[in-house]
């Protein structure tokens, strides 16, 4: 059990003059509209607000930027079409912080991967998200593979990756007894790590909101509003109304190409590329101490086996082009490929111990590189597009870069004065499962809701779920991302009815209105008795 040290009060920052907005109260993420959180009405023509910067997309890219911008005296809003965050690729990925040897020197990816990796290590304690510096290995099975390892090592050196060294297969197996006997050598990257990607996105967004950034969910950008002649941005028209701002950042993931096209920029062409994964029971998480890659090929880094930040094994991903930007269905061929690839690296994985599978869509641009920059025309429009692996890793470094870009290139449109009230730290919801017995006892005495276990598999208490709702969770999936309730071996079989009950109670909804992940994803169709009445009315 990881000792968390002195328990900080939930959500309340240190006293530094006036408290910032959103000081731990219910986040202002419903923005301009009233009414049921589940069926927010379409609003047209109404101006929802005036801002300095609008960030289109609340994934890791938008979230890290929002957090950096919240250090300035700016009105910032993050808009996302999803009902809960993170959605898209930020929700469904391997959680890996890549060391940075994989990217061709000279590319934007190569420039930001290693610095992003470093930035995560600097930030994770301050922002209280889980990071495990496990280290990673690229595994060679042949002579050709070994030559490839040399190339990667070389590339890594040029990209500023520290500590790379190639070890023989026997050394790898001494450190990692479960690694395949067929591995002849491996490139060890000590700075490879894994994060809980949900916690990371939520941490950046949470901190941003505490410092005044506003978050609007279920808000889809339909048009970018430009001055007459199209030379400058004015704002965006969304499904929730019009937001006005002199700077708009396109961080829209798989839809970043469409957002770019709204201002006439056809150069961003997203090629959605699906990656499928398995997660295993935590009982076998300790089979390995780090994470393994095969040698990469033209499709990507290959099927990996990783020990996740929370102690499961993650197997995957595959890499398959698809047409749909949002379809995250897994396939039998894909999952078979995942298992085969995983067994190649760690042959003793008990296949029957998978507990869930999922797929994510990479927002790969046709150039295969990140597309970062401010457009000359219309002025005020900034791209952070084509963010695919190592997108998660690079994001915090990209955010710092874009802050500088705004300061240098768009100083005429926004003024980057520091915000004296902004607070760089935040605490996550208390991880009850990670506390010592004494810490748990103290908490339980203060609040009996900590003695009410809701998720038995991951030891998540009612108090944590209530806090998640307080911080903005409205769906079963959001509760899961905030607290891990439902992530365990029974996959919500035990806790789902209880989570539904708590959501309904805390949000003053009927339980049958609770959704899995927002929008039309209702979990239940009604109350049991209502059905006979409906049928009777029908037949009458």
């Amino acid at each position, binding site marked *: 059990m990881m000792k968390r040290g002195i328990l900080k009060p939930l959500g309340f920052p240190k006293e530094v003059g006036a408290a910032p907005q959103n000081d731990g109260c219910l986040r202002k993420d419903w923005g301009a509209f009233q009414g049921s959180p589940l069926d927010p009405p379409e609003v047209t023509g109404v101006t929802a607000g005036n801002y300095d910067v609008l960030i289109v997309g609340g994934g890791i890219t938008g979230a890290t930027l929002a957090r950096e911008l919240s250090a300035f005296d700016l009105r910032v809003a993050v808009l996302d079409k999803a009902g809960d965050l993170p959605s898209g690729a930020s929700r469904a990925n391997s959680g890996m912080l890549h060391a940075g040897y994989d990217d061709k020197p000279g590319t934007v990816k190569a420039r930001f991967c290693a610095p992003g990796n470093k930035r995560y290590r600097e930030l994770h304690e301050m922002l209280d998200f889980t990071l495990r510096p496990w280290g990673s290995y690229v595994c060679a099975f042949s002579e050709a593979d070994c030559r490839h390892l040399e190339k990667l090592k070389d590339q890594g050196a040029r990209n500023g990756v520290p500590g790379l060294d190639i070890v023989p297969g026997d050394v790898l197996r001494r450190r990692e007894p479960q690694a395949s006997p067929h591995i002849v050598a491996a490139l060890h990257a000590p700075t490879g790590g894994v994060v809980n990607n949900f916690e990371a996105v939520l941490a950046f967004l949470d901190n941003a909101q505490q410092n005044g950034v506003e978050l609007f969910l279920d808000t889809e950008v339909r048009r970018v509003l430009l001055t007459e002649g199209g030379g400058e941005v004015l704002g965006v028209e969304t499904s929730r109304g019009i937001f006005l701002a002199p700077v708009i950042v396109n961080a829209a993931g798989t839809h970043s190409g469409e957002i770019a096209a709204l201002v006439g920029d056809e150069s961003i062409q997203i090629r959605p590329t699906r990656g499928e994964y398995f997660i295993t029971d935590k009982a076998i998480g300790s089979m390995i101490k780090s994470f393994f890659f095969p040698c990469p090929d033209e499709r990507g880094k290959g099927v990996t086996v990783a020990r996740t930040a929370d102690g499961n094994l993650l197997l995957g991903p595959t890499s398959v082009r698809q047409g749909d930007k949002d379809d995250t269905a897994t396939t*039998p061929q894909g999952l078979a490929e995942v298992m085969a690839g995983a067994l190649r690296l760690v042959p003793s994985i008990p296949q029957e*111990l998978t507990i869930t*599978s999922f797929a994510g869509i990479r927002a790969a641009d046709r150039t295969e590189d990140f597309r970062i920059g401010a457009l000359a025309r219309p002025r005020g429009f900034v791209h952070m597009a084509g963010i695919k692996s190592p997108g998660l890793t690079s994001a915090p470094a990209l955010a710092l870069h874009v802050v500088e870009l705004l300061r240098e290139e768009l100083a005429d449109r926004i003024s980057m004065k520091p915000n004296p009230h902004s607070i760089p730290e935040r605490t996550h919801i208390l991880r009850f499962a990670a506390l010592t017995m004494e810490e748990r006892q103290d908490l339980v005495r203060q609040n009996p809701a900590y*003695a009410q276990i809701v998720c038995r598999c991951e030891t998540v208490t009612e108090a944590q779920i209530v806090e998640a709702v307080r911080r903005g969770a409205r769906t079963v999936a959001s509760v899961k991302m905030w607290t891990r309730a439902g992530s365990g071996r029974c996959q*919500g*079989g*035990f806790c789902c009815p209880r989570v539904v009950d708590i959501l309904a109670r805390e949000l003053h909804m009927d339980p049958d209105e609770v959704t899995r992940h927002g929008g039309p994803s209702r979990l239940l169709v009604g109350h*049991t008795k209502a*059905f006979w009445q409906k049928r009777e009315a029908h037949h009458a």
Partner: protein
Amino acid sequence: MPEVPVDVAIVGAGPAGVAAGIGAREAGAKEVLVLERDWDLGGILQQCIHPGFGLRTFKEELTGPEFMHRWIERAHGAGVRFSTNTMVFSMDDDGSLWTMNPHRGIEHVVPKAVVLAMGCRERPAGAIKLTGTRGAGIYTAGTAQRFVNMEGLLPGKRVVILGSGDIGLIMARRMIWEGAEVEGVYEIMPWAGGLRRNVAQCLDDFHIPFHLEHAVLSTHGRDRLEGVTVAKIDAQRRPVEGTERYVPCDTLLLAVGLIPENELSRMAGVAIHPGTGGPVVNQFLQTSKPQIFAAGNVVIVYDLADNVSDEGMRAGRNAALYAAGDLPCGGRRFEIKGGKAVRLFSPQWITDGGDATVFFRVVRPFECRCKVFADHGLFSQTHRYARPGEMNEVHLSARDLRSLDPGVTSLTVDVEEV
């Protein structure tokens, strides 16, 4: 942390745990404490509201709650103490238990003997490699049962059921009674997983199509389930070409197996049998740790609640005897083995210190006269059939065991056609 010393502690107040409490008290244990995480007693039987329980014990057909009511009344009468809203979140090597309760906080229950009666969890979709989208509307059958029978909420209106274990069959009928449509039940094996009576009463009675040797291949519907693709499968469990069919539905219930919930057992270092997924036990229901006993579905997935309660009684009694230092130990040890026709069995070893009943499930149906037997002439009984959905029993007497040849160290139970 406050310590709570007791003679016998029992984890779970379902049919095994409540009976264990009674068994312990009736065997003379003074302080018998049953720890239950739910706010009420009864375990999974609280939500099993259909009749079919207690025929052997009470000679009546009771619903799950009615069955538990009788056992709970008897437990109260016997002086068993219950602690509800109490989650056991950790068990130490010595069998002592760490519990959490909203009023009393964290406590350290220190028993002289423990009976583990945690039951099972359901196998989730990820474990059967179900592919497709992840919309709302995919549930394990037991979770859906909880929603319907205790929360009064309906999971969906047009249901497909994967798996024909009893919970799947029961939920087919239950959903019909709450006004839903059940499109069909799909089962990968060539035979039903649950009791024949349930096939008759839950499917045949309602003309619900029952598709054997079929699988649900994938799910469709991004936000809410919209349909599933099903297909016939071959002997290698691969889809047969040309048999794929799209079935519109908004609910998929999974009845694809129960897994004994042994997280606590593992924490305490109790040896787990890879076949059953439950603790290795002897006929006294004693695990590899002499002070830790186990009973019910946490040991092996049972078919009849009566067997679970009986076993609970015995485990409670033996735990009490152990706590008092009176449990007979030693004696000749025999390993139990399952023959060719046997899939799962319990106990996994016995001594000649007492009579023993070995429960087992066959690997496939025998729809013919067959004999259920143990070797060395210890037991033989003819039956008209043997089915995976119904447990078989082999009864061994202590006297017969003691008179076995000294060289015999293992006994095999099996079923053969006659």
